[in-house]
């Protein structure tokens, strides 16, 4: 096919060579060779044709494939970015929830600690009051016991002293007077 094409191009060049002889002087003064130009144009067209038929499709296909891959990659990247954003958002939500729960736990713990302290304080006060009351009771009992002991000891001392004094000083005359007084009292 290529040989047939080149044969046709040569025949056409020979034909145009004859018709352009008249204008050849202006062109040769410009340095333009019509035959060569025609060959170059035909060759360029042939190359363009061949490239367009055999090379450019392959190139374009590979470029398209590469674009598709790039597009795929970009899509995957966007999807990954979306997923990452969603995951981050989820993490942020969970963190916020965890912080809220932690805050609640701390508040509850503080309240419970305050309540326990109050209870312990109240219990300590009650214990102290109980100890104080017991001490007061003990002291009262001891005071009462001491008063009893003093009362009894005083009675005993008075009785003993009276016995000794009367034993030493009571005369028969005084005794007679005491007896007479006692009998008068008994008579009444």
């Amino acid at each position, binding site marked *: 096919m290529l040989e047939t094409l080149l044969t046709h191009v040569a025949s056409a060049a020979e034909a145009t060579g004859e018709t352009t002889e008249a204008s050849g002087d202006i062109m040769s003064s410009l340095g333009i060779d019509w035959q060569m130009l025609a060959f170059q144009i035909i060759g360029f067209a042939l190359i363009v044709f061949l490239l367009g038929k055999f090379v450019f499709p392959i190139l374009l296909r590979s470029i398209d494939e590469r674009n598709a891959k790039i597009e795929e990659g970009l899509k995957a990247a966007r999807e990954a970015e979306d997923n990452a954003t969603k995951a981050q958002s989820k993490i942020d939500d969970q963190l916020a929830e965890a912080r809220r729960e932690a805050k609640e736990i701390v508040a509850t713990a503080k309240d419970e600690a305050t309540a326990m302290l109050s209870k312990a304080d109240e219990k300590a006060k009650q214990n102290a009051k109980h100890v104080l009351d017991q001490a007061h009771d003990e002291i009262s009992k001891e005071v009462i016991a001491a008063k009893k002991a003093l009362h009894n000891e005083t009675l005993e001392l008075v*009785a003993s002293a009276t016995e000794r004094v009367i034993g030493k000083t009571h005369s028969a005359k*005084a005794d007679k007077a005491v007896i007479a007084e006692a009998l008068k009292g008994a008579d009444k």
Partner: protein
Amino acid sequence: MSSHLSRTKIAHYVAEQLRAGKRDVVAELAAFLVEERRTGEADLIMRSTLEQLEAEGIVLADVTSATAIDEAIKTELQKLTGAKQLTLREHVDESVLGGIRLETPSQRIDATFAHRLSQLRERKI
């Protein structure tokens, strides 16, 4: 005497005999109590006898004092007991310290210092 006479009846009999001046009744009573095996009732019978005599104005009383009592006190004692005939058994006991204690079958009057001191000691709590 018949078997198992009451103490009251025995005491009444003894009192009658004593009022009549028959002192042998005491020996009779002792023999009776031994025979009847009622010697444990001797004190009760004697007390009952004395009570009956006291009811009739014949009083046997024990008098205790730290010093010997004189006639004036004896007269006061007779007035106090209201007895027609008062027989005193006098006891001198220095431990009573002073005052007088009179014991008859039916009453006891303790006006001794020892008794008063004892009452004082009883007020211990």
